């Protein structure tokens, strides 16, 4: 977990924002030495999607727009408690945590930030959950493996992401919880990094309705 100590900023007044941004910027430039922190800086400047809004925004812009209140980001302890695998590259989640924490320390985080974070955390967990439900078509000789017979029966056709056969044996498959559309696990995971929607029906992939 990356922590930036001793930069405790609260954005209380409009006119302070520019000054705060200057401070954030100089703090950021001092982050350049560490590759991990550099990545966090990168994320700070990278546009992310907030909830249901259409336009992606940069965290840094959120700060600039004075959406930040002086409320502090209280979840940092719970962040540490969640089971993040540093080898998990999904959404650069690990770095995202680092980044949220940096922003939170720098700005005295916004409620919105908490929302963004919760949303991504939710997605992260949902994907973990999805991975657990992966199954594969067993080879014909040993049909009594982990694969669910019912699922097998329905697997006709191609994965619409790679256009390869879904019923090839031994490849991990997944059925999306809401719409039941099936894909290769590997294929849908790479798509979910970019989108929340099922490639076939544009239903929300992960949220259980």
């Amino acid at each position, binding site marked *: 977990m990356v922590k930036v100590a001793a930069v405790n900023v609260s954005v209380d007044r409009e006119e302070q924002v520019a000054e705060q941004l200057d401070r954030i910027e100089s703090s950021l430039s001092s982050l350049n030495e560490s590759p991990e922190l550099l990545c966090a800086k990168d994320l700070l400047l990278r546009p992310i999607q907030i909830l249901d809004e259409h336009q992606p925004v940069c965290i840094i812009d959120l700060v600039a727009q004075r959406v930040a209140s002086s409320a502090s980001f209280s979840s940092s302890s719970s962040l540490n408690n969640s089971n993040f695998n540093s080898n998990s590259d999904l959404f650069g989640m690990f770095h995202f945590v680092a980044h949220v924490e940096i922003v939170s320390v720098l700005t005295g985080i916004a409620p919105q930030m908490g929302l963004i974070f919760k949303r991504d955390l939710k997605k992260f967990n949902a994907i973990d959950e999805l991975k657990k439900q992966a199954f594969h078509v067993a080879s014909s000789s040993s049909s009594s493996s982990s694969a669910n017979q019912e699922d097998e029966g329905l697997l006709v056709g191609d994965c619409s992401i*790679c256009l390869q056969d879904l019923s090839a044996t031994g490849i991990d498959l997944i059925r999306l919880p809401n719409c039941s559309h099936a894909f290769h696990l590997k294929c849908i995971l790479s798509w979910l990094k970019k*989108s929340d929607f099922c490639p076939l029906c544009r239903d929300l992939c992960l949220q259980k309705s």
Partner: protein
Amino acid sequence: MQASRARLFKEYKEVQREKVADPDIQLACDDTNIFKWTALIKGPSETPYEGGVFQLAFAVPEQYPLQPPQVRFLTKIFHPNVHFKTGEICLDILKNAWSPAWTLQSVCRAIIALMAHPEPDSPLNCDSGNLLRSGDIRGFHSMARMYTRLAAMPKKG
């Protein structure tokens, strides 16, 4: 990169099979670069593009199909959602509404559908959009028709 190649190769084989099935679309891959494709599409009937054959150029990104292909008209076309100079196309599925379930072939179909159903409210060609929005359907038709004749129809004789 590997995934996009495999997928494009699969599409290539599919296209060979579909050629007969969809006479309105002729997709072809560059001989030396599987990321470059061109398509010839027929202007839909009962539109000012009827009888024209329009060439599209596809530049497929390495992240395909997670990212949409870049498509533009090489043939000049007068259409509200196509940039008159660059041939750039304003179509949601080529931008935020992209899904990897689209193929180059189905993108062609979507473009044909766009030719038949222009969306004058998101114009890349303002002249054309304005004509339609102001209700000057005849004006729009005659302009679109003229460019179809000029640019998209084989010269006779």
